[in-house]
Each structure stands twice: as structure tokens, then as C-alpha cells.
């Protein structure tokens, strides 16, 4: 029999499948009839699911009603879960949008889950109630960047953290102008249509938040520094495409980065090393001798003086530093003027002679009149005083008298006198303090007594003005103990022995023949001494890295460029010897060594030898660094040399390969 021939009644037409309830008997007529003795009703159950005919009847939920019930139940469960988790202990674990990078996660590892968000986010409460409430004034103006800087302030200054490239607008504009003015050096661009006018930056360059570039919660192994070339250049007015074709050509990189130590590679490689040295044989000029590799294959920027320079330069350097620096030296003034200064030593009377020591000048400036008087004397050189000038004569007397007062003060108060004077002139600095600390006050005290008290009494009768002044000199005829010219003076002094003995003062100094202190014999390791011939307090250096000479240079670097003391200090043989190899030290305090550029310097361009030294062809330094025959250093490295490997498909040519964003001036 065909199924089409079966005769069934039509299904009921008065049911309401869209309602919540449907009659259970109607759907299963035969089966439920036993329960519902009233049979099927036409009205169906009420909206509350109650049968109007019998309590025992079983109205059933319609499918639509069941669906709504399921939907509502799931939604209620979801809302309940949100409320439960938001107020619970594990809210950070539940609601964090992704894992932190390993470094940040490690920092927060010991933090309570409920406080982890607050470590970085100011409004950290995850309670739904707080979403609609004001945070109050507590966290006003505290941004995510401020929280970043709570830890990163050691590497990025707070004041410049939000500035583009951490540089003030003026500096950026200067750099841009420099680039524009150097436009001729820039190769034709290959913009490749990548950067349309629509792609102007959305950033305020005075307020760049950390999270603009560093996006967190992207997994433990995410690269927070990942940036595309387009992102790097979005703020730039000049944009570049391929490195090989459109990157600006550089002129002197990597050599024009102001190395702390001046070293002429050219002359050393071509002249000094090939020529015979002390041993009579030429020395091979090996790059790695002075720039050895460390365990990470990174090259040292320089090695110690003792290892690389001492063998050739130590003797010459000692000769220069032996000449030392003067703390002060008495000028020679005419006898007529000397009379106006009580107890002025006869040895310092005669024709105008001598120079005010640069360091003494700094201390003498604490007296305003003396400072004015010194400005009236050309280069503080007494030989340039015109004796007919009453004004200059008065200035000379004032300056000479100031020398005496300074000595007297130090003799009485010790180092405090120098510190007070430094404070008055605004020169207090660690380096000047070092110099003061090194000066023995007893030496000054004895010097004052000898020059201004004892010598005057001892030479009441016999002392004669010296016809000329022995300034700093190396002339052995003049300064040596065997000096014939000065021998007469010694005799004169010896003739006065009885007179001096009869005086009853300072028997020691007067009872014996004064013997001139010879620093080359008695002060081999350097130190302060009194030069009674020159009437000066002098420091004798002891070669490389002498602490007092070093402090003097550091103190000098703090002086303005127009300060004449600075220029005069630079003419000192000891200081000039230092500055010859450490030119940066004269400009910036502490610029003595060349720290490694990798990982330390914060300039726009970065470079590491490590990956390059793994390539066989590049292990030979001269592959890239060619010593110039024309000038003191190397020939510049051409862009093309880098572009050989640095392409998109090889070593990479993205901006961040060679450039860093966070820089310092």
C-alpha cells in the first residue's frame, strides 16, 4: 500500500505555537487521555501554563518559549559571571586582554592578582560600579605613561619622555633644517607610492604616549619594539622607501661621532708603527690590539692607556706633566710699589714680572676690586704693565697685596679659606674640591712665614731687589743647584748668617745654607712643593691620569669658553698634554674614556659589530674601515657597502635595524 493512500485527519488548526504553553493532551492525544479525563480542550492552557479543565493536566512549553528560557538563562549566567569575576580576587586574571611580555610579567609575578592592573593603569578598579563613577582627583593627570616612567625614568627623562624622540621641538627643528640644508647629499628618493598625503601622523609630537608604539598584552613573546617603516616615518616630512636607493647618503659616519679619545689612525698606521720603535724594529699595526673582541664578539672601543699607549708615550707624557700647575706665584713689583705692601719679600721686587697663576686668579676673584684690577692687566702678565701708568701700577700693588692676603688667609684658616673663596666666586665643584683637598695647608703656612716674615727680617740689610724675575723655566743654568748666576745670592745669604742667628728667630732656616728643593729628585711621584726661587707653590704631576691635573682640567671644563683663565690653563704644558688625547675633557666634565657605543650611547644610529663579525668576509676590519692617506682618519663607509647585504630579503632594511627612537641630545 502506498503511504499516500493512508487517510489521516487534518492536524488541529487552533493551536498557538507562538504562545508560551500548548496543551499536552492535544499533541499526544492517545497517550495522555488516561491522565486527562476531560479530553482535549479547545481553549488550551492559560499564559501561566495552567489547564482550564483539570489540575492534573500537563500543558507543555512551546519551542519558542523554551528557546526564550534558554536564552534568558544563558544571559543571566553570563551577567552573574561578570559580576562575580569583576569583584573577585581573580579579576585581573579573568579580564586581562592578553599575556604581558615576559619582562613585565616577571615584575608583577609577586603582586596580588587584584593589584596587578593597578600597577600600570591608574583607574584600575574593575568593579562595574567604578566604570560610571569619577576617579576623583587622586589620579587626575596620572596617565599610563607616568606609570611606565615610574620604572623607566632611569633611562628616559620624565621631562622629555613624551616629546618625539625625547628631544625638544627646537632640537628637532634644527636637525630638520640641517637635513634640508644638506639636501644635496641626499640621493633621489624612491617613495614607491607608499606614503600618501592621507598618511599624516595622528600624533601630537609634544605628547607621545609610550603605548602609542609599545602595545602590551600581546603575548609573552611579543616584541614591544616592533615598528613598521611606515609607522617610523609617519611624523617625518621626508620619507624614504628602499634603503639602497632612497636613504640619505652619510658623509662621515661612523667616524664623526665625537670619540672621547683623539687618535690619528692614519699617522699611526702609516708612519709611527712602520718606523723603528725603541727596540729598533717596526710594529705591526693591528686593529684588534686596541679594539679587542669580547665574549659576544663585540669590539671594544678602546683599551687602557697602559696597554695601548704607555710603551711609546709614557716618557714624553711624564716630561710634560712634570712641569705641573701653579697654585699661585708672587709677581715681581718695583721696589717703590713694594713699600706699600708690608713685608713684601725683597726677592719679589724689581721690574714688573711674573704672571698671575690661573688657579690663583679664580680665588682672587672673590675680591671684587682685585678682579677689576686683574682685568686691567693684559693676560695677567706683569711684564706688560706700563710703569708710567698710575692706574696699572695701582692695580699691580692691589694684586700683589691680594696674593699676600690669600696666602695669609690660607696660612691662618687652612683649606677653609680656599673653600670660602671658591664659594664666593660660585666655583664650588667636586673637581675644585679635589684640588683644594690635595693642597697641604702646612706648606702654605710655612711658605707665608718664610716669604713674608722670616725672609724680610733676614734680609733687612742685605737683600737687594732682583733685576729680573725667574718665571717658570726649564733653563738648567737658571734653576739648577749649580747655578753660577745665583751662586752669589747664596753667598750673600751666607754672609748674613751671624746677623740672622743673632735675631733668635727660626734658627733652622737661617743657620744653614738654604738648599733649593729639587722636585726632580725629591718629588718623583709628584705632589705640591714650594719653589723658593720663583716664589711659587707648584704641583708636579706624575704622568698619565694624575689626579690633580685631571681635577684641574675638569674644573676648567666647567668654566665658560670666554673665561681667560680657561685659555691660560690650556696653554699649560701638563694640561695641553692631556687635552691633546682627551679633547672632550676640556668641553665636558668627565669625558676621559670612550665608553662602548653599543648599549650605552643614545644616538639616532646604532651599530653592533657582533652580527657582522659572524660573516667571514667582514672579520677583516679593513674590509669596511680603510685608513685614509689624505686625512687623519678613515675613508667614509659608503651606503652601497651596507646595501650589499641590507636589503628587504637579506639582512633587512627596516628603520629600526639601524636607528633608535629614544635618543638623548
Amino acid at each position, binding site marked *: 500500500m502506498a*503511504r499516500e493512500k493512508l487517510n489521516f*485527519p487534518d*492536524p488541529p488548526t487552533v*493551536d498557538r505555537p507562538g504562545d508560551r504553553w500548548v496543551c499536552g493532551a492535544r499533541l499526544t*492525544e492517545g497517550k495522555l487521555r488516561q491522565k486527562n479525563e476531560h479530553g482535549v480542550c479547545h481553549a488550551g492552557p492559560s499564559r501561566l501554563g495552567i489547564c482550564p479543565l483539570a489540575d492534573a493536566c500537563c500543558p507543555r512549553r512551546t519551542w519558542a518559549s523554551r*528557546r526564550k528560557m534558554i536564552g534568558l538563562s544563558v544571559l543571566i549566567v553570563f551577567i552573574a559571571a561578570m559580576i562575580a569575576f569583576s569583584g573577585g580576587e581573580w579579576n585581573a586574571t579573568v579580564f586581562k586582554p592578553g*599575556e604581558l611580555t615576559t619582562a613585565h610579567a616577571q615584575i608583577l609575578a609577586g603582586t596580588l592578582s587584584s593589584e596587578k592592573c593597578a600597577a600600570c593603569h591608574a*583607574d584600575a578598579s574593575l568593579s562595574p560600579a567604578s566604570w560610571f563613577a569619577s576617579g576623583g582627583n587622586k589620579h587626575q593627570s596620572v596617565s599610563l605613561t607616568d606609570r611606565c616612567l615610574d620604572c623607566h625614568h632611569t633611562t628616559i627623562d620624565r621631562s622629555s619622555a613624551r616629546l618625539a624622540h625625547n628631544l625638544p621641538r627646537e632640537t628637532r627643528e634644527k636637525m630638520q633644517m640641517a637635513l634640508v640644508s644638506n639636501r644635496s647629499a641626499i640621493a633621489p628618493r624612491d617613495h614607491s607610492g607608499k606614503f600618501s598625503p592621507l*598618511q599624516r*601622523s595622528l600624533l601630537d609630537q609634544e605628547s607621545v604616549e609610550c603605548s602609542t608604539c609599545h602595545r602590551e598584552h600581546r603575548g609573552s613573546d611579543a616584541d614591544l619594539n616592533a615598528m613598521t617603516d611606515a609607522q617610523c616615518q609617519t611624523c617625518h616630512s621626508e620619507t624614504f622607501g628602499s634603503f639602497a636607493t632612497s636613504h640619505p647618503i652619510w658623509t662621515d659616519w661612523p667616524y664623526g661621532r665625537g670619540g672621547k679619545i683623539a687618535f690619528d689612525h692614519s699617522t699611526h698606521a702609516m708612519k709611527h708603527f712602520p718606523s723603528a720603535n725603541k727596540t729598533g724594529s717596526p710594529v705591526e699595526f693591528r686593529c684588534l690590539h686596541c679594539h679587542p673582541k669580547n665574549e659576544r664578539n663585540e669590539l671594544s672601543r678602546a683599551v687602557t692607556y697602559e696597554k695601548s699607549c704607555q710603551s711609546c708615550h709614557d716618557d714624553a707624557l711624564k716630561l710634560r706633566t712634570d712641569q705641573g700647575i701653579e697654585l699661585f706665584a708672587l709677581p715681581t713689583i718695583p721696589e717703590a710699589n713694594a713699600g706699600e705692601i708690608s713685608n713684601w719679600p725683597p726677592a719679589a721686587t724689581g721690574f714688573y714680572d711674573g704672571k698671575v697663576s690661573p688657579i690663583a686668579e679664580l680665588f682672587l676673584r672673590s675680591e671684587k676690586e682685585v678682579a677689576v684690577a686683574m682685568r686691567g692687566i693684559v693676560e695677567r702678565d706683569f711684564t706688560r704693565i706700563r710703569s708710567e701708568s698710575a692706574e696699572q701700577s695701582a692695580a699691580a700693588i692691589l694684586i700683589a697685596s691680594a696674593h699676600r692676603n690669600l696666602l695669609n688667609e690660607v696660612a691662618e684658616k687652612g683649606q677653609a679659606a680656599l673653600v670660602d673663596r671658591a664659594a664666593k666666586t660660585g666655583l664650588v665643584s667636586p673637581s675644585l674640591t679635589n684640588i683644594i683637598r690635595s693642597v697641604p695647608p702646612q706648606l702654605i703656612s710655612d711658605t707665608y712665614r718664610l716669604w713674608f716674615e722670616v725672609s724680610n727680617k733676614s734680609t733687612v740689610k742685605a737683600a737687594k731687589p732682583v733685576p729680573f724675575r725667574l718665571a717658570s723655566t726649564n733653563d738648567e743654568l737658571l734653576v739648577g743647584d749649580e747655578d753660577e748666576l745665583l751662586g752669589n745670592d747664596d753667598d750673600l745669604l751666607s754672609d748674613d748668617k751671624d746677623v740672622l742667628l743673632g735675631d733668635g728667630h727660626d734658627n733652622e732656616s737661617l743657620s744653614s745654607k738654604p738648599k733649593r728643593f729639587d722636585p726632580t729628585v725629591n718629588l718623583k711621584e709628584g705632589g705640591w712643593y714650594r719653589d723658593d726661587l720663583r716664589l711659587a707653590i707648584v704641583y708636579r704631576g706624575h704622568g698619565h691620569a694624575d689626579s690633580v691635573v685631571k681635577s684641574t682640567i675638569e674644573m676648567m671644563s666647567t668654566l665658560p669658553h670666554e673665561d681667560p683663565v680657561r685659555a691660560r690653563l690650556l696653554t699649560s704644558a701638563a694640561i695641553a698634554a692631556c687635552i691633546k688625547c682627551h679633547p672632550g675633557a676640556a668641553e665636558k666634565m668627565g669625558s676621559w674614556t670612550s665608553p662602548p657605543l653599543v648599549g650605552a650611547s643614545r644616538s639616532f644610529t646604532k651599530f653592533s659589530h657582533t652580527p657582522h663579525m659572524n660573516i667571514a668576509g667582514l672579520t677583516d676590519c679593513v674590509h669596511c674601515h680603510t685608513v685614509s692617506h689624505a686625512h687623519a682618519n678613515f675613508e667614509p663607509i659608503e651606503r652601497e657597502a651596507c646595501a650589499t647585504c641590507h636589503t628587504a630579503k637579506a639582512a633587512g632594511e627596516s628603520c629600526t635595524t639601524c636607528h633608535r627612537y629614544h635618543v638623548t641630545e
Partner: protein
Amino acid sequence: MKRFETISFRTRRIIGLSITAIAIAIVMSIHQSIEERLGRASYFSGFSLFGALVALILIGIRRRLPMLPLGSVSTWTQIHLYTGIFAAVIYFVHVPAMIAGGVFECGLSIVFLLVTASGFYGLYASRMLPRRLTAVGGEFRYDQVPWHRNQIATAASGLLRSDHESAATEVLRGFYAKYLRPFFESSPGLTYVAVPTGSRRRRLLAGLKELDRYLEEDTRSTSGQFAALVRRRDDLDYHYALQFRLRIWVVVHSVFSVVLFAAAMVHGVLALRFTF
């Protein structure tokens, strides 16, 4: 609207896909542009995605407001379909990974993917299941399936009452009691509902066929009526299984859509609150 309905299915699909592709291209290019300009591109893609979710939810509202002149359900379904495709693509633009990290975000991703997958299954089902139901024949409303099932069971139980007692009748009654009655009076099993096949039907019909040699002419007629009822019941169960599948799909899709919408709002609030 009328004009939209008169165009062919193929043309309608081409137009719909083209508009969707253009919209996706525009959003992706703007997203890329904002990303390169160091803006918050995720805000743009996030709000685009949320807008798409709102548009997708609107079809449910339209169905509940049939009295308003808001266009036909067919048109809304087309909009829903292509907006869904748009949302699925924009999701991958928006998220850094297919399944986001974090418990809540991970759940949100899974719910989105579940709703998206169920949506695409719905697209497949709305194309395929009506054809299969039409091929079977008969029209059974889902909520009336128990009534039909009851009618068939009642008719089957009444077939043997009229027959006079004979050996053949006993054979047929035994077969009915052992195999046919459980078939007619019970609902189809979950296995059949999940994967409806004709094996049960073939087995019962083969059994009835086997009985033929023991039956007389009148009981053979009864056996034929049983066979017809078996076929009708199987057709009914097939309708039931496919309609149940469609209804389960609607439940999953709609319920998780509501959860997705609620979770998306929470996600949006969190993103806006914790970005800076």
C-alpha cells in the same frame, strides 16, 4: 524593495558580495592607514565590528516587529548574511590572534567564532535542508510532529483488530508487537535525530517482506498498510530530525549572539577605560 526581489539569485549574490568586499576593503585600508599613522586602529576596527554586530542583531528585532514597514524579512536576511561575512573578516583585522589571550577575551573570541561558524552553517542549512525536506514529501509542522506520530501509532495499533484470528494473523501480530509497536510508539533516538538514515526503515520493510510468504491475502494487505505506515513514520521522523537541527541551530546562533553582544559591550568598556 520589489526591485530587489525581482533580480535573480545569482545577480543578487554578486551585488551582495561586491558591496561586502568593497566595505571590507575600505575598512581594511582605513585600519591600515590609522595603524601606520600610529593611531588607535583597533578602536576603528572595534567600533566597525560592534556596528556590524548591532546590524546583525537588528534582524531579530525586525522579526519581532512585523507590523512596522521595515522591509521584508528576505531583504533583512540578505543584509544579515552579508553583514555577517563582513563582521567575520573585520574580526581578523581587529584581533592580534584568532583566539585572544586572557580568560574573558578568549571566551569572547570563542563565542564570536561559534556564532560566526553557526551563521555559516545556517547559510548552508538554509540552502540544503529545504531541498532535502521537499524531496521526502509531506509537510509536517515541527510542533505538530507528536500529533502526527500519535496518529500513525493509533492507526497501526488499529490495523490488527479487524483481522480474523488465523496463524498468519498471529505471525503478523508477533512481528508488530516485537518490532513495529516500539517503532511507532516511541520517539526517534538521538542517533537518528543527529544522523537520520534509512537503515531502520529498510530493516523493518525487509522484515515485513519476509513475512509475506507466511501471510494470506487479507493479512498481506494489512502488512502492506504497516509498510505504508512505516514509510510515513520514517518520513515524519526525517522531517523531525531536520527541523530539530534547524531549531537547534537557531537556538545556538541566537543565544550566543546575545551573549556575544553583551560580552562585546563589556570588552568595549574595558578597552576604552584601560587604554591610557
